């Protein structure tokens, strides 16, 4: 009797285990079969498979990728691209790939992650490859920091140039409310926000649920005072915020108190903020130069961008050429564990160049990493033309980025805090200084 039940139970346990195992096993064989099919080339020659982890989820990301892959087919017909779609997850999945030794041949990541990968040997040093020398020769002027890391190594082939942040405004609303343009000083901007609020507009839409945008805004003010920007939080190893940074924090607080930002700003996402601006509820908007396309599409010739305001008009004029954007390495990197490393490096460099080509010739964006021979075929929005004609030729300097992730994060946290009423400049400097003192010891 007893035996029988032991048996029954063990059969049950075994059964449930086999169910799960056969489920796995069955599918596993399916997988290998399908990958074998796709791997075998039809024409008999063996194709080299390159697995690439890249963003490919909306038009902004899929179009340049598809274009580059099509071009690659012409250039290197023996290479087959296998795409592993990346999403915006703070590179968690990529880090898991690294931890499990399952890196794709080519991947796309940011500088913070690249630094970890460099330490753990998950990124191939591209310094001595002929492709790198070639890439360097084609690089647009001023973009060295996009290709060569502060430690002198090359980790990735970038495809965009140095992107920067702009203040967009709705000309119609400004006219209606009677605000003089251009706004040149912080005081004028504070005045404008009061007028706009009184007229029932949200002065500036900002998607401050994402911390980087509040930091970008702050950086806009900092770079008026100190062209090098955040890099100076690291370069001289200061253990307290330099004056330029304190001034900028005071200015940002002043603007917040003048009502520039919505009370719900820190819980506003991109879709909400852009919708406020596009629908004419908000008079200004802050975002990168890439925003030019969608705001032109939505607002036509009503929208324009302005230079960052400064403490006075003289500073405003002298700082026009200080770009609120910093280059740091990023783009397509190659895994050292790739079985076809040589090919992967070639492909990575090629794809980055073709991305640039697409963005330049089809989208009309001059913010690309390498020089493009092809002419611009797409229609270039006037705001982008202004950048090409007015800004790029007059760039005095780009800001430098901060590499230390602790410093970067504490700045992110506290610029967001500056948008909350009641948070003081003193709290801001105290919080940042604590980390500076610790990290710059």
């Amino acid at each position: 009797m007893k035996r029988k039940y032991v048996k029954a139970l063990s059969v049950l346990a075994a059964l449930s285990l086999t169910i799960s195992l056969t489920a796995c096993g069955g599918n596993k064989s399916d997988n290998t079969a399908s990958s074998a099919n796709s791997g075998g080339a039809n024409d008999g020659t063996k194709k080299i498979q390159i697995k690439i982890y890249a963003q490919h989820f909306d038009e902004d990301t899929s179009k340049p990728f598809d274009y580059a892959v099509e071009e690659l087919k012409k250039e290197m017909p023996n290479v087959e691209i296998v795409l592993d779609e990346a999403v915006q997850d703070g590179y968690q999945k990529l880090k898991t790939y690294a931890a499990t030794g399952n890196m794709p041949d080519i991947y796309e990541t940011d500088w913070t992650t690249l630094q970890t990968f460099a330490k753990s040997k998950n990124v191939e040093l591209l310094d001595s490859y002929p492709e790198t020398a070639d890439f360097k020769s084609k690089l647009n002027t001023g973009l060295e920091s996009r290709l060569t890391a502060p430690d002198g190594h090359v980790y990735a082939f970038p495809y965009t140039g140095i992107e920067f942040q702009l203040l967009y405004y709705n000309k119609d609303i400004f006219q209606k409310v009677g605000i003089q343009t251009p706004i040149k000083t912080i005081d004028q901007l504070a005045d404008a926000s009061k007028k706009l609020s009184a007229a029932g507009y949200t002065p500036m839409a900002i998607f401050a649920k994402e911390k980087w945008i509040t930091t970008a805004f702050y950086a806009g003010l900092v770079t008026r005072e100190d062209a090098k920007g955040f890099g100076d939080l690291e370069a001289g190893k200061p253990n307290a915020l330099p004056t330029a940074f304190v001034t900028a924090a005071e200015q940002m607080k002043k603007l917040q108190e003048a009502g520039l930002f919505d009370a719900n700003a820190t819980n506003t996402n991109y879709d909400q903020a852009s919708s406020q601006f596009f629908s004419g509820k908000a008079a200004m908007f802050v975002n990168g130069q890439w925003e030019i396309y969608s705001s032109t599409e939505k607002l036509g010739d009503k929208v324009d961008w302005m230079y960052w305001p400064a403490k006075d008009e003289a500073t405003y004029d002298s700082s026009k050429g200080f770009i609120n954007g910093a280059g740091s390495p990023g783009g397509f990197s190659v895994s050292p564990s790739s079985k076809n490393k040589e090919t992967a490096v070639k492909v990575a460099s090629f794809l980055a160049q073709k991305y640039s080509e697409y963005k330049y010739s089809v989208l009309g964006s001059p913010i690309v990493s390498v020089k493009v021979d092809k002419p611009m075929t797409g229609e270039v929005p006037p705001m982008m033309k202004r950048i090409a004609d007015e800004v790029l030729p007059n760039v005095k300097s780009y800001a430098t980025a901060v590499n230390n992730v602790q410093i970067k994060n504490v700045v992110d946290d506290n610029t967001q805090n500056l948008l909350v009423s009641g948070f003081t400049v003193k709290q801001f400097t105290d919080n940042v200084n604590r980390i500076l003192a610790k990290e710059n010891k």
Partner: protein
Amino acid sequence: MNKLRAVLVQTPLWIYFVISVYPLVWMISYSLKNNDEIFVTNPFGFPTHFRIENYIAAWSQFNIPRYFINSFIVSSVSTLLIIVLALMFSFAIARMRWKFRESVRLYMTIGMFMPLQVIMIPLAILVRDFHLTNTYGALIVPYVAIGLPFSCLIFYGFMKSIPGELEESACMDGANIYRMFLQIIVPVVTPAIATVAIFQFLSNWNEFMLAYILISDEAMKTLPLGLLFFQGQYSTDWGGMGAVMTIASLPMVIVYLFFSEQVENAMTVGSAVKG
């Protein structure tokens, strides 16, 4: 008088009913709106214009039936395993007499508190070492392990409160321990089984993080991963996400409605055994 009292007692219950059902209605109308309607013009009301295109987009973006089947297999196999293993384990802890049962119980509790974020990478390595990468096992094994502490604790609570006489009478009848487990204890805790089954199935069904990290093969992906298709580089298609969430949740609501009937029945059976 009595009637008035009944109304007074019942009204709050029905108010809470509305608060509980509204999200369902909200989700469905959300899935039929675009970003402007969701955030600015009409966040709470019914959609004025039914944007079926959200569903069409969801359907064309990814292989919904495939994802659905994967979700179903993973959730049901792991739920089944959790229940069988947790019942056995809890029985040994709650009803049987041996020395270290309290320590073993505490040992089982630890897993409930471990945040997924930190065991994620060791788990991914484990999955690789057991050659489970991109198989159903990559999700089933972790789901079972993660579900166990919780389920064991529930079963333990229920089994602990079973009166001792039940066992004694079973013992008198000459039933052995396995038979007692299957024929006396398991039927008594049926309501708990139903509750655990629903809850485990749901949490496996909705699980996103592990599925995202451990599965890269298109053929193995589960439904929550469909949400990723609507996240753009800058902008997110919230209506499309709503459609995916509705596609994922609605069947669950229906299954639950069906299942809750079974729970009720199970309970009556359960008390009949007890009586």
